[in-house]
Every structure is written in structure tokens, then in C-alpha cells.
């Protein structure tokens, strides 16, 4: 594959963080729907934003690799199409939160659950359907000289993801406190 394979070290960990963010958003959305916990809502919206950020990295770095490996920028392959749809669901989650008005948090939580439900299908799609995208076995069968930097890349992305999630939750928490303060000031 040559030097273009180095894109793999950013593309795959970003995809893993997208899945992780989607999973966190789904769990937090479920907790919010059943318990109306404000913290769960803050976690859900923060994770949805990270799913969009890491998702755009996946959707840009993938075609750059594919152009060399497959000769085309994009294919309407099952994995690629489902990833794009999942990313668009999380974009719609954020748009709903931004422009949906009062009560949009509950509707957005349901949208977040739909996005999360796609994660296992996106993951196994390459094994079930005949797709151009490499299967999930590629990661398990990496030669040692590639496996070590790959594990390091995953670890780094994971740390960065956790740091971003904590920071983003802090922003959401401050924003909610500000809204409450504005209400208190008006009363």
C-alpha cells in the first residue's frame, strides 16, 4: 500500500472515537428520556458534537486514502453510506438542539438513540455485505510494526476524546447555569 497507509493511523482511531461518542450520546439520551437528568442531557449533547467532529475527520481522511487505494474518492458502498447517514443523524441532532425551540431536547434524545442504533450496523456492515471497504479483521491481523503505532494512536485519540468530552460538558453545564441565572434575573 505504501506511504498512503499512514492515513490509517488517523482514520481508524477517529472512526472508533465517532462510535464511542455515538454510544455515549445514546446511553446519555436514554437516561435523559427515562429520568430527565440534566447531567445526562449535557453529556448527550456534548457527545453528539464530538461524534460530528470525529465523524467529519473519518469522512475526509477516508476518501483521501481511497483515491490512492481504490482509484476513486467515494463509492456508495454500504460502510461508507451508513457512516455518512450516521454522521448526518448527529448533525440533525445538533441542528435540532440549536433551532428546535422548547422541548427539542426530548426529540433530540430520540434522534440520538437512532444514531446510536446505527453504530453496530456500521461496524459489522463490512463483514456481512460484500463491500470495497476493508473488513474489521484488518485491525486484528496487523503486522507488529504497524500494530504498535496503531495502538498508540488509539490511546492518544482516546485521551483526547475524554479531555474534549469533559471540557464540552463543562461548557454545557455553564450554559445551563447561565440560562437559569437569566431566568432568576428576570424574576
Amino acid at each position, binding site marked *: 500500500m505504501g506511504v498512503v497507509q499512514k*492515513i490509517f493511523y488517523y*482514520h481508524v482511531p477517529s472512526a472508533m472515537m465517532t462510535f464511542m461518542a455515538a454510544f455515549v450520546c445514546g446511553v446519555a439520551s436514554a437516561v435523559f428520556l427515562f429520568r430527565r437528568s440534566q447531567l445526562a442531557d449535557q453529556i448527550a449533547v456534548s457527545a453528539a458534537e464530538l461524534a460530528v*467532529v470525529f465523524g467529519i*475527520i473519518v469522512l475526509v481522511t477516508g476518501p483521501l*486514502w481511497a483515491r490512492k487505494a481504490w*482509484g476513486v474518492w467515494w463509492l456508495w458502498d454500504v460502510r461508507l453510506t451508513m457512516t455518512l447517514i450516521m454522521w448526518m443523524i448527529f448533525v440533525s441532532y445538533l441542528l435540532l438542539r440549536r433551532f428546535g425551540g422548547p422541548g427539542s431536547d426530548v426529540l433530540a434524545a430520540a434522534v440520538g438513540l437512532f444514531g446510536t442504533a446505527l453504530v453496530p450496523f456500521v461496524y459489522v456492515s463490512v463483514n456481512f455485505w460484500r463491500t470495497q471497504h476493508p473488513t474489521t479483521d484488518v485491525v486484528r491481523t496487523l503486522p507488529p510494526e504497524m500494530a504498535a503505532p496503531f495502538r498508540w494512536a488509539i490511546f492518544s485519540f482516546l485521551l483526547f476524546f475524554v479531555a474534549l468530552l469533559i*471540557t464540552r460538558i463543562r461548557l454545557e453545564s455553564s450554559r445551563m447555569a447561565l440560562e437559569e441565572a437569566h431566568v432568576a*434575573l428576570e424574576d
Partner: protein
Amino acid sequence: MKSTAVVIGAVLALAGSVVSAQGTQGFVPATDIAKESLPATPLVYGAYGFVWVALTVYVFLLWRRIGKVERELVDVTARIAKR
């Protein structure tokens, strides 16, 4: 009319001879076609550059949003305390 028929007949005869001449040569694989050779380095630089720029811009925007909200929160809290 007769001359037109002669011209058409001549063209058909010529075309037939060309087709039969090609047919006798058989399939000749094309080996001298230039293959597309796409350099990988710009793609790798593009991918790595995009990741770094995207994450840096996101961190910067996050930092600015937190600063703005927390400054406003301090201001509103102070106004509430004054009342």
C-alpha cells in the same frame, strides 16, 4: 443514381477489407498504455493537515465559547447579587 451505387459499393468493399484484415491479426493486448500513477504523499499530507487543522479549530472554538459563557455567567451572577 448509378454513380451513387458505385460509390456505396466501393465504400462497403473497402470497409470489408479493413475488417477482414483486422480479423486476421487477432487480439493484441495493449501493453504500452500509460497507467495512472497518483503520488501518495499529497494525500497523506492532506489527511494529516486536515485532522490537525480541524481539531485545532474545534479546540479554539470550544475555548472561546467557554470563555464567553463563563464571563457572562459571572456578570449575571453579580447583577443578581446586587439586587
